[in-house]
């Protein structure tokens, strides 16, 4: 069984900037991390690998050259290898164009039975890329998965939905997006780090995927960012100190009544 885990390199939460002109995210190499939910996806793949004989786990990422670090980190954590999609043609891709590239990479890897993604990335926060890849590949998708049981030809999942959980069974090959509750990600091991250092991770460009530049990047993206602005969160905080007179709570109730809430 071959499992592809899609990992996105994202800025550590405190260091993201947007170019106000183009609306494109400015990334600095410093402080980039693997999208936290993608670590859960990777851990789930490794868990399956530990529970079966025949599992190969490959980490796939699209991003700048520096995203190689994310793939090496995945190998250090236990992945068997990976591939990086990188090149100017990919820059500026929206979720549709990103999904097109990642789907092509999965096809090119061949014989992938299961694709695992994070439910969403902390930078884009769309949660769209996974389902769009599934649609492009024509395979079933399940999202918000917090439990996963894999058999030879099918996978049973439990997804977190409004007010409860849904249990669904889908045939393989399939794409699953996972939530944080699914597991506790592990750490790189010493032998893993040695393997990561020696691992040869291919870098594929648009040509390798058989995609034309028109299908990728800004040209291949149906959406355009037209404006970036700071949200007006003009909250003027009324602060009260709790004492033993009951005044703070009374003020709170008055405040809520004024706003017609409680």
């Amino acid at each position, binding site marked *: 069984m071959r499992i592809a885990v899609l990992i996105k390199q994202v800025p550590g939460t405190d260091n993201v900037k947007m170019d106000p002109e183009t609306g494109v995210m400015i990334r600095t190499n410093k402080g980039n991390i693997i999208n936290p939910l993608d670590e859960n996806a990777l851990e789930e793949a490794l868990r399956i690998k530990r529970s079966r004989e025949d599992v190969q786990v490959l980490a796939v990422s699209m991003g700048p050259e520096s995203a190689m670090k994310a793939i090496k980190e995945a190998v250090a954590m236990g992945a068997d290898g990976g591939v990086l999609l990188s090149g100017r043609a990919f820059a500026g891709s929206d979720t*549709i164009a990103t999904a097109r590239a990642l789907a092509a990479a999965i096809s090119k890897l061949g014989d992938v039975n299961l694709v695992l993604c994070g439910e969403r990335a902390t930078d884009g926060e769309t949660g769209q890329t996974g389902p*769009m890849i599934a649609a492009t590949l024509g395979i*079933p998708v399940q999202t918000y998965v917090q439990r996963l049981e894999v058999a030879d030809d099918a996978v049973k999942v439990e997804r977190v939905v409004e007010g409860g959980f849904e*249990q669904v069974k889908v045939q393989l090959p399939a794409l699953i997006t996972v939530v944080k509750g699914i597991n506790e990600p592990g750490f790189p091991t010493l032998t893993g780090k040695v393997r990561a250092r020696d691992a040869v991770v291919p870098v594929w460009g648009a040509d390798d995927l058989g995609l034309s530049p028109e299908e990728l990047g800004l040209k291949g993206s149906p959406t355009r960012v037209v404006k970036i602005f700071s949200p007006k969160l003009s909250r003027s905080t009324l602060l009260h100190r709790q004492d033993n007179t009951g005044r703070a709570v009374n003020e709170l109730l008055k405040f809520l009544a004024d706003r017609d809430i*409680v």
Partner: protein
Amino acid sequence: MDIQNYKGVMVLGEQKDGHIRPVTFELLNRGRDLADKLGVELSCSILGNEIEDLTEIIYRGADKVFHVAGPALAGFLPGPYARALVRLVQEERPEIFIAAATTTGRTVMPLVAAGLKTGLTADCTLLDIDDKEKILLQTRPAIGGNIMATIKTPFTRPQMATVRPRSARPAHRDESRTGLISVKNYGDSPVSAVERFLAYVPDATQEVSIEDADIIVAGGKGLKTRDGFKLVEELARLLGAGVGASRDVVDLGWASYPHQIGLSGKTVSPKLYIAVGISGKVQHLAGMQTSETIVAINRDPEAQIFQVADFGIVGDAFEVLPELMGALKNAPGRRLREGSEDNAL
């Protein structure tokens, strides 16, 4: 793609067990506004086997309802839903197609967008029409709500977006409205062999689902123990509110993951968010700072949560909460949860 051939606004309604979900009415409100600005019709697609009271959708502002029926569509399965919607959109050709950013909408819309090779903007909080170009402006929070981005879909149709639940009021109900209800029977779409729905298991701890709640009471590590966290659950029960939690609380096992609010949990925007014993780290704020009103209770006057709060009480949760609950129980005429022992007041 000749974009001139696409006309009208379509929203995706949602149902559960044949009942229309209230989030549908929020979408109809949004959709009506957009349709009026463009001077076009508003339609609502809704999928499922048997659905009660489709005229309600007309009363809430739709000119047309497309009920897509079929055995494969009784419960939500991404594949059959997406295939039916792609077909419907190809038949009806709306220029705008929006859905709620629920677990259903956020799953099916990317499939539909990919199927139609058009763009999709996730989790919008603001939708508007560009006066000159007559196209949809989709505004969404990005990077944990720290910036807003406005996005458009200039070259392809439909222009698609999911809209964050509770970011608009439900549409006004008007029984004098009339409209057309048509059933699309895509009965030939077979029950999928590759996707099978097994069961829905309600979560007792989410008796009031966080996504649907008007009020959320959320607790953090300041509650000290699992027993301490029960105070938060008690206040929530009293207010008919959903229970939220910080990540630390979930990691400690005082609440389960579906209750986690924040960057790696859920994003919510209820009318009222009460944060108790939560420090307000950026990762938590990312999930709740767009709430309409925020109340914070924290012992530390410097706690970051106060920076996004409208009302704060600096004090010990173990004093403030019992006092607050006492006052709520004794206050006549307050809108407490139906069926609670104090409702007789």
